[in-house]
């Protein structure tokens, strides 16, 4: 499997050791009751990097990030942040990291300013309340109560509380979940600004486009494991083509109305006893993958997916091949390969299935 290649990058960075890394995770395991939430992961994040943990709900992203934040004790393995460990340097670490957690609700009856003044008071050093309000672009809302803020503004306030201690390491746990597209883009701009300012950021998300846009490197997690690691580009390249072609063929008229032997020449071996699914899916996958530029074929719920590297030359040939097989298209579309396709290829499931 070409995922091996991704682990290759992991090995080289492991050889570099953890000394220079902002975050270094080795052999991390955590179980809740009999559920293995995190099942042996190794990761490191370099200073100045924006690193994404991508995966479906329940993949272990939040558990991993909360262990890094010192909120959840680990079962096995080591976690080092800025060369420090939670077991021995908790106090120091809390001063030097910043975080935005999932689902934090600040008191409705406090103003933006008051919340930030409170959080600022917890840190020995940091930026001023005014600066944090400016960074989160909440100037107009500084005297508004939290209860009157929109979802996006609340999330930016959470971001401001994470920044007010001027952290060396910033954790964002699903920062845009539940936000409308505009608020999401606003938050992305904010994170990009922080990236440009050279901050080390670790974020979790189950939005592929978010990871693709914001993250220098991404670890895709599933069932407590890291199943792929690399830059979004590298990972997308493992799909085998830059583009994905999706199509569906006319589901043949159901056998109740048309007996199979009266149907068009779908496949020579189609008999009345053949299951109807076989009849309906009668696409010759081998003929398709033989087309130059088509890397692979898979079928999901009646939709065929091909990963394709030379879209402009491959598509006419795909049409021709389907024509030859006597199939009629009911759907046809193409899109650039995304991290979603990487996840689908690795797990056979869609990211948002669960």
């Amino acid at each position, binding site marked *: 499997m070409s995922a091996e290649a991704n682990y290759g990058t992991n090995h080289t960075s492991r050889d570099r050791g953890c000394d220079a890394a902002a975050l270094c995770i080795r052999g991390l395991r955590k179980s809740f009751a009999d559920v293995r939430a995190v099942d042996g992961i190794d990761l490191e994040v370099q200073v100045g990097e924006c690193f994404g943990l991508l995966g479906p709900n329940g993949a272990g992203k939040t558990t991993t990030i909360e262990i890094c934040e010192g909120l959840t004790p680990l079962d096995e393995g080591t976690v080092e942040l800025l060369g420090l460990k939670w077991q021995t340097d908790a*106090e120091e670490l809390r001063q030097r990291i910043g975080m935005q957690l999932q689902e934090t609700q600040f008191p409705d009856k406090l103003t933006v300013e008051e919340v930030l003044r409170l959080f*600022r008071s917890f840190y020995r050093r940091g930026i001023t309340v005014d600066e944090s309000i400016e960074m989160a672009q909440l100037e107009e809302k500084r005297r508004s109560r939290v209860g009157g803020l929109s979802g996006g503004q609340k999330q930016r306030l959470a971001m401001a509380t994470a920044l007010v*201690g001027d952290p060396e390491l910033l954790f964002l746990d699903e920062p845009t979940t539940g936000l409308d597209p505009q608020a999401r883009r606003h938050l992305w701009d904010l994170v990009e600004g922080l990236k440009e300012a050279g901050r080390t950021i670790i974020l979790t998300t189950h939005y592929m486009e978010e990871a693709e846009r914001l993250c220098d490197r991404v670890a895709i997690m599933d069932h407590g494991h890291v199943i792929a690691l690399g830059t979004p580009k590298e990972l997308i390249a493992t799909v085998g083509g830059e583009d994905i072609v999706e199509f569906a063929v006319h589901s043949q008229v159901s056998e109740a109305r048309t007996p199979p032997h009266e149907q068009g020449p779908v496949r020579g071996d189609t008999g009345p006893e053949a299951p109807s699914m076989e009849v309906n899916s009668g696409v010759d996958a081998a003929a398709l993958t033989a087309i130059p530029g088509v890397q692979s074929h898979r079928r999901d719920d009646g939709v065929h997916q091909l990963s394709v590297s030379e879209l402009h030359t491959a598509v006419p040939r795909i049409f021709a091949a389907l024509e030859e097989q006597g199939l009629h298209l009911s759907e046809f579309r193409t899109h650039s390969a995304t991290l979603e396709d990487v996840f689908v290829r690795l797990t056979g499931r869609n990211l948002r299935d669960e």
Partner: protein
Amino acid sequence: MSSLELSSLYQLTITRLKLTLREPEAIFWIFVFPIVLAVGLGIAFRNRPPEVLPVGATTPQLVQALAADSGLKANEMDEAAGLHAMATGQIVLLAIQAGDGVTYRYDETNPDARTARLLADRAIQRAAGRHDAVTAQNQLVREIGSRYIDFVVPGLLGMNLMGSAMWGLGFSIVDARQKRLLKRMVASPMPRWQYLTGYLLSRLGLLVIEVVVLLGFAWLVFGVPFRGPLWQLGLVCVITSFTFSALGLLVASRAKTMEAVSGLMNLVMFPMWILSGVFFSAARFPAVVQPFIKALPLTAAIDAMRGNMLQGTQLGQMMAPIAIMLAWLVLPFAVALRIFRWR
């Protein structure tokens, strides 16, 4: 930014105070409710002039004789009307002329009726010419400090301090836990002890307002006495408030929902509302349960407050209730810190 503004303990305390004062319901329960209750009770139990007992008599002579006693109000009625009036509670006694004598008809189990019987008989005998063998004089007592309102104000104060401390801590802690704010706070470098201390300090601030409002009102309107040293009363109030804060902390230390914490609160407070002598003396309960009642923190608090306000008892003579309260402060606080759930 001033150094005070950068002090996390100051910020936690101020934030807490602001949050309480911005909650209209809290303002009502803490400041308005005790005054409404005091006014209501003050009106219900105001000292009325000695009661005049309504009685009936069957002849004008008897009515005239009975009217001589200011404690009786007599009306003439025939026997049938009299019986009906007694059955409906309009009179408590009926004097019936029977030849030369008189018959009193009344319910012996009714104290008012028994009093009426004594007064009526004395009036009728005097009218008939009886003279007292011994001269007697009355000296009437109407002393401040022995009225019901004097008794109930310290009780209300204790009850109010219990309620505001427990609700104040319990609800806001569980609310913060439910909103994942508690988790966010402990993920920051905030010292955990300061979070809880912030609650206690903000309680102190509210306490001053609460106590001054209630006692000031009772003093101005009802003239409730303050016989003991005020600073000692203040100290008792502070200890009371901290004791119930510790209990509130314990109750809220693990609860995850408002329903759970409300149930626990009521479970803790309800027995004390009844048993601890807020509205009537706890001495009315049977002797077997007295040790249990005495060990309750609200009983101790109210005993100490009544001792100070009504009897002018010095702190040194109230070590038992103070010790009980301190025990209720230290133990729940220690347990709460151990089992407290931050997320």
